[in-house]
């Protein structure tokens, strides 16, 4: 298997190169540049031109690309034009935030989705099932941001139960319990809202899995062994139905780092999604290319992880 994994990783390299070139060109095609935002009567246009020159933005695109690529092979993703810090440190900062938010979201998602899916599958076509389905359809059809904004309005402002922006409050010291609590407290509302609407796919897969597996022959075999019904359900039906969800896991894990543009901008949460949107708005090329590339890598790793996970949990599948 390790050989296979290694091979898959090798195959990723050309894919990423193409992706990086694509992204680089796209980024350069966007109107404006990092210094467009500096236009105001207090800044000297000549100075802006000078900075452009100094940052190498006047070079031909391919020169910029090869320079960027060369630096990247040395682990240097460049300096953010806007934040004026190395992109790696910037991303690292945001990735940590996003990681916690996504982790909470994922955990909650599974905590909510699995019981729902199980209920729906077990009571197929009964009222429980219909209830779950309606919930599912609603969370699927209502645009997420409407959901988030209503949530923030109700729980953040009107009821005042939760903070409404940021990742931590300003007046706590890192390392203390208060700090930890504050971070957690900031996560609760966004992660609950986010998880509520991301349950759809899992619930659906689980339900279908259970409905399908219920009538499989091996379930009949289990019953013929005299296995009690609830064990039949948990040990045989449920476990087998969880397989397709296990396949999600890989992508979910890497999704932990990509963040969600929508939730992060609604909550002004300084994560990867927000960073991405900001870097587009501010034409922060270095951050932008690094991010898209990172998203690409994460997707690839996610697919690989999914395959590995599947091959671990499902003995029938061996990754080739």
């Amino acid at each position: 298997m390790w050989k296979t994994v290694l091979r898959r990783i090798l195959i990723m390299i050309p894919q990423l190169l193409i992706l990086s070139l694509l992204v680089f060109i796209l980024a350069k095609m966007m109107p404006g540049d990092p210094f467009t935002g500096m236009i105001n009567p207090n800044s000297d246009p000549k100075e802006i031109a000078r900075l452009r020159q100094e940052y190498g933005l006047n070079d031909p695109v391919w020169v910029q690309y090869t320079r960027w690529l060369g630096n990247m092979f040395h682990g240097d993703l460049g300096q953010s034009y806007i934040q004026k810090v190395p992109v790696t440190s910037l991303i690292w900062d945001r990735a940590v935030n996003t990681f916690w938010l996504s982790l909470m979201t994922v955990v909650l998602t599974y905590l909510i989705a699995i019981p729902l899916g199980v209920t729906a599958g077990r009571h197929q076509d009964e009222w429980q099932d219909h209830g779950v389905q309606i919930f599912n359809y609603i969370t699927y059809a209502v645009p997420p941001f409407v959901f988030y904004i209503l949530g923030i309005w109700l729980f953040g402002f009107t009821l005042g139960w939760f903070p409404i922006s940021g990742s931590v409050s300003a007046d706590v010291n890192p390392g203390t319990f208060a700090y930890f609590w504050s971070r957690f407290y900031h996560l609760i509302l966004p992660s609950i809202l986010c998880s509520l609407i991301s349950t759809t796919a899992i619930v659906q897969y689980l339900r279908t899995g259970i409905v399908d597996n219920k009538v499989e022959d091996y379930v009949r075999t289990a019953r013929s062994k005299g296995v009690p019904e609830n064990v039949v359900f948990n040990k045989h039906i449920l476990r087998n139905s969880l397989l397709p969800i296990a396949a999600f896991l890989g992508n979910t894990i890497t999704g932990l780092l990509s963040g969600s543009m929508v939730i992060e901008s609604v909550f002004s949460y300084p994560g990867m999604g927000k960073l991405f949107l900001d870097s587009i708005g501010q034409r922060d090329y270095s951050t932008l290319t690094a991010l898209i590339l990172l998203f690409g890598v994460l997707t690839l790793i996610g697919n690989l992880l999914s395959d590995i996970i599947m091959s671990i949990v499902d003995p029938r599948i061996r990754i080739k």
Partner: protein
Amino acid sequence: MAKDKNTSKKDQNAKTSLPPSGFKIIVREVWRDKVAFVSFCIIVAILLFTFVGSLFLNKSQVTEINIAEAYYAWGESGHVFGTDDGGRDILKLLMMGGRNSILIGLSVTVLCEGIGLLVGLFSGYFGGVTDAIIMRIVDFIQILPMFPIIIVLTTVIPNYNAGTLVWLISMFGWTGSARYFRAFVLSQREREYVLASKTSGSSNLTIIFREVLPNITSAIIIEVVLAIAGNIGIETTLSFLGYGLPTTTPSLGTLIGFANDPVNVTTRPWLWLPATILLLIISLSINYVGRALQRAGDARQREN
């Protein structure tokens, strides 16, 4: 003469004994399932409301700004659903917007599913190297972060409108359905009727389109129906992030996008709520119909 009569009678006969796998089973299944039937009626009603309704509207009139009438609430001055920030009538915007969004959803679906179907058919049927190459391309496109790239492209493309939006979304959307259809084709290819056709001397193209394709129609119908439901709402998220359509092109996305501003969420629900509910109803209805179709498809699967 007599023979002719005979055949025509048989033809009638044939019509009545269409296999329950076709259109009939769908109708039957939808009719039997009351929720699906009601949903179907709702869809028809919405289509009438948006498409026929829009016929009576003049686009430039609907999107005309009248600042004096901005922000009328429900029912004020004859605006049933109030007006938006430019004094445009929400009800009329809803009609046109609904139509536009449905059209966008349909076009995206047609493009994505069309390309996906072709790719899936060829890739699945020929297998081997063809399949390997196509699937690598699909893999590559799937690792592209779709939303980020769409957003970048919307800022790059000079005259960004509904058409370009459709193309942009479809550019990424087809891969999923290609994979999906390919899986079906693969399972069909295993069936011996494909071999039988080969030994009967049919060409590959004939086999793909005349033999395999009809057998995955129910999968296609289901996929397409469910995809429409998903695609109608697809521009709303873009609108939220600020990369949606211009307001001169009313759409559900631009209407729901009013919810972007919390002030509107809390104090002017008429701006975004009707569109949200309309979108919800459309999605729900299509989903319920899709479900019934899926059951019809399953029933067929069992019969096979």
